[in-house]
């Protein structure tokens, strides 16, 4: 018995040894990257500028061998940038930069992607919600990752006690809103709202945009660690310059930009991605960007957001805006290159 089993055992051991060898080899090859960018989500047109800049060789022109690492539901971009795992990051928004600084993470925002709040609260035309006051007593879902504070502030500005509104965390799907089990849902202009428009129809929707209520949360913050910014400013400048160029190229040719993105994620819905890019262009070129260019850090907006986050105790202490949001890199780049 023991003799006949031996060859089979040896085969198993050989296989396992080979697998172990492969494991060791893949450790050795994982170190050739010069710089990396950690996105906040998987490849989609929301990040077209980066993918276009990479495909067109704009980063290479700046001497940067860039790797774009996608994000995911459990990825904290700020931590990865602070720890040095990634050189650059596309963080949730100004609010995540405030929160990171509040936790003493040494990350700095060098630009803000969308100049306006990138999400809205949406209700149905034939539903019970006509004004913000009608939120009272109805079911509202939102993301408890920052959007909830925008909602609280909007309600507070209108003198509405948020305890009277049934606010629930929003899950992945917009189906509960489409089916009518939720009266108000939160939707980004570039993603969920497009899905909802397709399923319910634009004319059947009522949109409550935070910006219309004087609350602006700029989002998609470009972040870097304090150390990288201090020690390799030329790398950061080159990265931002190439990124700006990538976005301008993407804005000038939506079709080609979506093609580039879809090379990374071929199963995406092309029309949805085209709509996403259009919305991104609108949000990124609005407001202060019209005057100062893409990724501009608008001081007044940031001060307002800071005060709002302090008021709701999202951040425990004052954050120094000059350290958390550094516009020196943008200012070092010619205005022509920044203008959309």
């Amino acid at each position: 018995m023991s003799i006949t089993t031996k060859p089979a055992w040896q085969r198993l051991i050989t296989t396992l040894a080979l697998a172990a060898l492969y494991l060791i080899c893949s450790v050795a090859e994982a170190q050739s990257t010069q710089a990396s960018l950690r996105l906040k989500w998987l490849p989609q047109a929301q990040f077209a500028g980066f993918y276009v800049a990479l495909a067109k060789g704009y980063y290479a022109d700046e001497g940067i061998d860039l790797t774009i690492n996608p994000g995911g539901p459990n990825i904290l971009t700020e931590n990865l940038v602070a720890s040095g795992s990634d050189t650059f990051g596309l963080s949730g928004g100004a609010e995540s930069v405030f929160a990171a600084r509040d936790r003493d993470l040494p990350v700095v925002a060098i630009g803000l992607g969308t100049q306006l709040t990138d999400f809205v609260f949406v209700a149905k035309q034939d539903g019970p919600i006509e004004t913000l006051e009608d939120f009272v007593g109805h079911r509202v879902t939102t993301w408890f990752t920052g959007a909830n504070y925008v909602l609280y502030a909007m309600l507070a500005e209108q003198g509405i006690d948020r305890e009277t509104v049934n606010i629930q965390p929003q899950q992945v799907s917009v189906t509960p809103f489409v089916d009518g089990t939720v009266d108000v849902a939160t939707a980004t202009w570039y993603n969920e709202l497009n899905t909802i428009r397709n399923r319910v129809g634009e004319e059947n929707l009522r949109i409550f945009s935070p910006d219309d209520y004087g609350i602006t949360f700029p989002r998609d913050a470009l972040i870097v660690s304090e150390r990288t910014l201090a020690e390799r400013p030329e790398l950061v400048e080159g990265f931002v310059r190439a990124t700006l160029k990538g976005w301008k190229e993407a804005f000038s040719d939506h079709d080609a930009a979506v093609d580039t993105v879809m090379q990374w994620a071929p199963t995406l819905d092309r029309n949805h991605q085209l709509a996403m890019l259009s919305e991104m262009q609108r949000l990124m070129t609005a407001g202060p960007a019209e005057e100062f260019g893409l990724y501009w850090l608008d001081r007044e907006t940031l001060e307002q957001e800071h005060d709002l986050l302090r008021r709701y105790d999202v951040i425990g202490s004052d954050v120094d805006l000059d350290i958390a949001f550094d516009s020196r890199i943008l200012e070092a780049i010619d205005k022509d290159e920044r203008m959309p």
Partner: protein
Amino acid sequence: MKPRLATLAHGATTRLGLTVLGLALVWQASTALLGVPASYLPGLDAIFSMMHRHPAPFIAGFIRTASEMLIGLAAGTLVGLINGVLLHRHQLLRQLLLPLFIVSQTIPVIAFGALVVMWFGNSLLSKAVIAFYLTFFTITVNTLAGLRSVDPAQIRLLRSFGASDHQLLWRLQLPSALPDIFIALKLAVALSLSGAVVGEWFGDTTGLGVLLLQSMYNEDMVTLWATILLVALLGSLSFAAVALMERVMLFWQPRA
């Protein structure tokens, strides 16, 4: 021996094939006849046409996830076997390490995953590490249990013939522990697959887990179901491979 094994496998495969075909027919017929909306459950025709139109991400994803899973499973099995033998031999080691292994398994993989990305980056390796993390414990515990269940009379007999520790291990203890080890391997197949899929949720561009995540958040039910079917296929193939290996290596065992 051989023809019997072949007919047995043949009969089982035919039955399995018919069951799968039957389920597929029920699926397709019910979605088509009852007019189930695609956002609820898409028909199989839509799912296969999606895979046919964009085969590249599905093939690449399948290969990628399979590699992550197999590397993790192989490493987990190897480490688990070594652990089992060492812990069996050294009581002190068992008292020191086993509680630590148990603690390691109480950490939810989601918490662990964020660390893995920080330590191992976005490589294939980081997913294999998660698959490994989920598998080595099962193999360790079952190897240990298998080694401990060896009949002491048989050990005494081999000892009386002057067998060394090494001979005892390879000729009696490990072969006797094989049934337990194979039970662990079958569990580990499922665990390593879910480890690889979840590992891909920590930022990647290729893999079945990536497709799953992307389609989930885009409410793209067709891609979601296509990916679910491929994950199921990968799991079944791996399970079948382990079962086949078990048949070949444990030919002396009575089969249920």
